[in-house]
């Protein structure tokens, strides 16, 4: 498909987070997929940065991401203004498997931090297909809760937890997940910090399928450099699989936490 040029349409900042919307030629994509994104800033940094798709509209030619400033690449993306140029390669990676049609038990979407955006994209698809879901979002403080209004607008307000109790229930997102699991779930979809994903996988193991979107440092993003691998259990054997190609979404029971 090759790298495509995009123009920044808007970039809304809130604290260290921004929602970046770009316009250009957009291929249809699925929740959980990502793009490799880069501005025209020369060789510093050199590599594009992986960003999950928050939303897309192939007909309108728009694409949006939500990102957090953590280093130089994300800072430069954060500072982009409308009219600035970016390039992006995507959509890449294997998406979240959609649950079977309505009628089954509800699913839970469990997200934290910049793990939230792909789950919001998923929630939008689930809402469109009238598949019932719970959205559980954990954060450190209320300032780290993301896209709460957008989620509410879909008809299912998120159930939030914060570590400092500044919004929602005080504690970790695993607490409401335990409750939901007991009430019965068809599947769990999760994206967020490794500790959270590991806990989610453990809680779901043997009970319900969990689909985890993992992160790894990426070179190419499209499967050729073998830089992004994670250890996965496949037919009893431990193998390295590529987050950018076999992932980023993996079956929680197959992920080896080393």
């Amino acid at each position, binding site marked *: *498909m*090759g*790298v495509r040029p995009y123009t920044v349409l808007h970039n809304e900042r809130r604290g260290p987070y921004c929602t970046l919307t770009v316009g250009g030629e957009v291929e249809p994509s699925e929740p959980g997929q990502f793009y490799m994104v*880069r501005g025209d800033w020369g*060789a*510093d*940094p*050199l*590599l*594009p940065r992986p960003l999950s798709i928050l939303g897309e509209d192939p007909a309108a030619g728009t694409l949006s991401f939500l990102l957090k400033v953590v280093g130089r690449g994300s800072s430069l993306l954060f500072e982009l203004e409308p009219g600035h140029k970016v*390039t992006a*390669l995507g959509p890449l990676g294997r998406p979240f498997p959609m649950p079977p049609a309505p009628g089954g038990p509800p699913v839970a979407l469990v997200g934290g931090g910049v793990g939230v955006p792909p789950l919001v994209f998923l929630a939008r698809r689930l809402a469109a297909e009238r598949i019932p879901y719970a959205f559980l979002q954990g954060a450190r403080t209320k300032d780290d809760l993301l896209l709460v209004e957008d989620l509410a607008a879909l008809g299912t307000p998120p159930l939030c937890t914060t570590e400092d109790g500044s919004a929602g229930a005080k504690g970790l997102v695993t607490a409401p997940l335990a409750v939901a699991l007991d009430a019965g779930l068809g599947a769990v979809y999760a994206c967020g910090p490794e500790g959270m994903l590991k806990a989610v996988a453990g809680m779901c193991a043997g009970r319900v399928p969990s689909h985890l979107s993992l992160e*790894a*440092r*990426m*070179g*190419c*993003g*499209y*499967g*050729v*450099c*073998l*830089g*992004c*691998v*994670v*250890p996965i259990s496949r037919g009893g054997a431990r*193998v*390295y699989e590529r987050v950018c190609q076999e992932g980023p979404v993996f079956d929680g029971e197959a992920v080896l936490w*080393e």
Partner: protein
Amino acid sequence: MGVDLAVTLGSVRLNNPVMLASGCCGYGMDMEPHLDLNRLGGVCLKGLSMAGSEGNKPPRIWETQGGMLNAIGLQNIGVSRFLAEKAPKLRTYGTAFVANFYGHTVDQYMEAARALGEEPALAALEMNISCPNIQEGGIQFGTDPASVYKVTKACRGATKKPLWVKLSPNAADVAATAKAAQDAGADALTCINTMPAMAIDVERREFRISNKVGGLSGPALKPIAVRIVYQVAKAVTIPVVGIGGVATAADALEFILAGAKAVQVGTALFVDPQCPYAILRGIEDYCARHGFPSVESLVGQVKDGAPMPKCHE
């Protein structure tokens, strides 16, 4: 424009001088969604060993200023699975595939060369000699001319395919290792592989990659690679393939003017998998603008003047 883009490396004819570098394009087909391989001069496949390798523990890569470190650990599916699962598909393409291979003993190199040498899909074999020789205390094959001679000679006897030797920039005197490879029967030399390098996360006081040391690639490496290509092209009569930080036509032309007959593009593919198209267009345009009828006529055409002094700073 009528520029003849084809280049000849011994018995291997490439449609044009732009190749993909080993380790940066998987087993070739992996690039297909992004790049039409048939428009390229050639494709060097991910380094293969007889036994295959699961590779190193992650994290495997880290970005540095103007470059990146990688310690993939030569993860590969092994020669036999490659021949069974991948090679048949490669036979249908119209580009030159080059199998990159390695071992940890001279015998392992020989075996790989012998097995790969039977595969009709392959135009040439490229020996990666930046690997530790476990029989010689782990010293890299590629840093010692005598070892280079020995392992090249062994592989030369094991296959009839054109044999390229990919030199390590870590030799004190790369011209000496280049000559050793030529004397042992190499058909071409690829310059260069990555430089061993390191990065530390100071906040955690941990190495950025689990292997501690990774290979530095990308634009940061380019001036070192151009210097080595120039030195090596002066030292040998066999063709030289330039590699290290090529991202634009100007980069490729630097290598060609320094003496390379073709170039390989590695890290730049991660920034833009289609950059080989722009590189190729730029080379063609350059030849036309400067009145060179062919890429071959451009090779080594930097104005040379006095021989290279040994001192700098």
